[in-house]
């Protein structure tokens, strides 16, 4: 009996020993920085960046509100609300656009003969392996005033003067949709590729029209892939930094840029920390919604 207890104890010890490196790394690089961010968000800003060790909720307060410098009246912060709203709206729009472009693309690839699929997938993933900055600047090159599109439209006489597309929500959207498209195509492709087309055949045999088959058989079965793709696009879109920075400039900022600003010129680290945590919370909401959706399907 005693020997057995001993054995169990040594087994437990060994398990902990094996888990130690992973636990250390997670603590060191994931939990600890998060704790630091949480602590910073409750401190006062230092004069030249950094924080003063003094408890303050000013950082959290400034996420949504601003205080008038002269009479201390409190109002909702228009600038922050706009950026917050824009971040969510642009991320949703990016998700929708990549859905519209990505699902048919994934369908196209998944229905090619097996030998051709690798080629098409390769084409989709090339941009993925290219530096984000390079890709974004490439998009900029397409739509800036003297860019490819404007020159083309001018030369065929479609327009008289270049259209100002850069530094608008539109530009950010184009950039993000381009950058995140592979993240939509790949999981949707994986789902469609797994789809057994004999089921579609069976549904035609049972008097289903193409639309009925799509609605009742194909969509329900590729839904997990569509949801996964949407999350994979939405979450990084929400925190996007490089793309809105280049395509939107100072005019069409998103949360990521606002956060960066607080740690840079803004010199308001507690606000930056609070904004970061707000972003994390938004992502968590999306993820909870995601698990609900997929788990609900399995149960129902």
């Amino acid at each position, binding site marked *: 009996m005693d020997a057995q207890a001993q054995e169990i104890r040594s087994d437990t010890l060994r398990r902990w020993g094996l888990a130690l490196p992973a636990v250390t790394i997670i603590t060191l690089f994931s939990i600890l920085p998060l704790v630091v961010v949480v602590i910073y968000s409750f401190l006062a800003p230092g004069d030249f960046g950094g924080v003063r060790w003094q408890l303050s909720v000013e950082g959290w307060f400034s996420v949504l509100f601003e205080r008038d410098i002269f009479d201390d009246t409190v109002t909702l912060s228009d600038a922050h609300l706009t950026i917050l709203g824009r971040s969510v709206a642009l991320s949703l729009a990016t998700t929708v656009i990549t859905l519209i472009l990505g699902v048919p693309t994934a369908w196209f690839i998944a229905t090619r003969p097996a030998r051709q699929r690798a080629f098409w997938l390769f084409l989709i993933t090339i941009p993925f392996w290219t530096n984000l900055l390079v890709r974004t600047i490439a998009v900029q090159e397409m739509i800036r005033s003297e860019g490819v599109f404007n020159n083309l439209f001018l030369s065929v006489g479609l327009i008289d003067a270049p259209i100002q597309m850069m530094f608008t929500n539109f530009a950010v959207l184009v950039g993000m949709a381009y950058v995140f498209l592979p993240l939509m195509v790949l999981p949707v492709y994986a789902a469609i590729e797994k789809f057994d087309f004999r*089921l579609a*055949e069976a*549904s*035609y*045999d*049972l*008097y289903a*029209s193409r639309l009925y088959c799509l609605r*009742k058989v194909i969509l329900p079965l590729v839904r997990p892939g569509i949801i996964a793709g949407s999350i994979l696009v939405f979450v990084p879109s929400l925190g996007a930094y490089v793309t809105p920075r280049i395509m939107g400039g100072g005019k069409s900022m998103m949360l990521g840029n606002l956060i960066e600003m607080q740690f840079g010129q803004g010199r308001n680290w507690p606000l930056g920390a609070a904004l970061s945590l707000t972003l994390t919370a938004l992502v968590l909401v999306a993820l909870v919604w995601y698990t609900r959706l997929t788990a609900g399907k399995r149960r129902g």
Partner: protein
Amino acid sequence: MLDLRNLTKRFGKGDSAVTALHEVSFSITEGEFFTLLGPSGCGKTTLLRLIAGFEPPTSGALVLDGRDIAHTPPNRRPVNTVFQNYALFPHLTVAENVGFALGAQGRPKVEIAETVTRMLDLVQLSHLAQRKSGELSGGQQQRVALARALAPKPRILLLDEPLSALDMKLRKEMQVELKRLQQETGLTFIFVTHDQEEALTMSDRIAVMGGGRIQQIASPRELYDQPANRFVAGFIGETNFLAATCAAGRLILPQAATTLPVAHADGPVTLMVRPEHVVLAGAQPDALTLTAQVDRLVYFGTDTHVHLHLADGCTLVARVQNGLRGGLPCRQGETIPVSLPGDALHLLPQEAG
């Protein structure tokens, strides 16, 4: 009711083209249990897919109730299929699967619910109506697939090797069940199998296919007793083939001591005799008598297979029923007289190869 007229199906183009069906023609009558039987790759599935509408024929006509439906899409043919892999919709419950066709046809909910209940009763699965189709055993999935295809009351039910994924015992049960269903509903079944026993026990008529052609269409009994050619004879049951000749109204088997009168044109023929008709004794009336050496005795429970060879090396198998006392009919290595009774012999035209 269903007429196939010179149906031909070719896959691919040019040199790499495969002709899966050559000029297939036959008719099926209402309420018939019709079986397509043939070895793997002979075109059974292709023919079924043509009837279901998944593939258009390269040429020929497919006439159902007087209308050519060769190019009608599957969702507008009153023909349903039970697929070999069942192809049940994994995200739907058993009841939703069975009601799928009626839903697609836009029938009222009440009617769908009523039909589903009736169909599940018919296949004895009412207690599983709310299960997901992925959570069923093979036999249960089989029944759901059957109920799903029967629910919209098709004119013809197509079944592509529906029992091949089941184990022996379940298979036998389902054979009985299928036959019962067919008789109860009075529906026309076109059943595909490569199992000759299954075909013989269930069918009203069997079409034996080989190399994309119909070899013979006949009742099970006729197919077994009077095969049209060597392919059919060899495919249905076990058979001995011996080369013989007809000359001046006599059947001459070179290895035999006797000859028999025959009403057949002169020339070489293939003589076919079923193992159960070979008699291990000499001096029978109206029989070809030979001597053979016993190679092997194989015990099969109800009977014993005696493998023999003749003086010139030809082999012959005899099937002897095991009696109560279980004595062996002969011993290995022994040389014994063998008779082939005249009425058990069947002559086939000699074929090249």
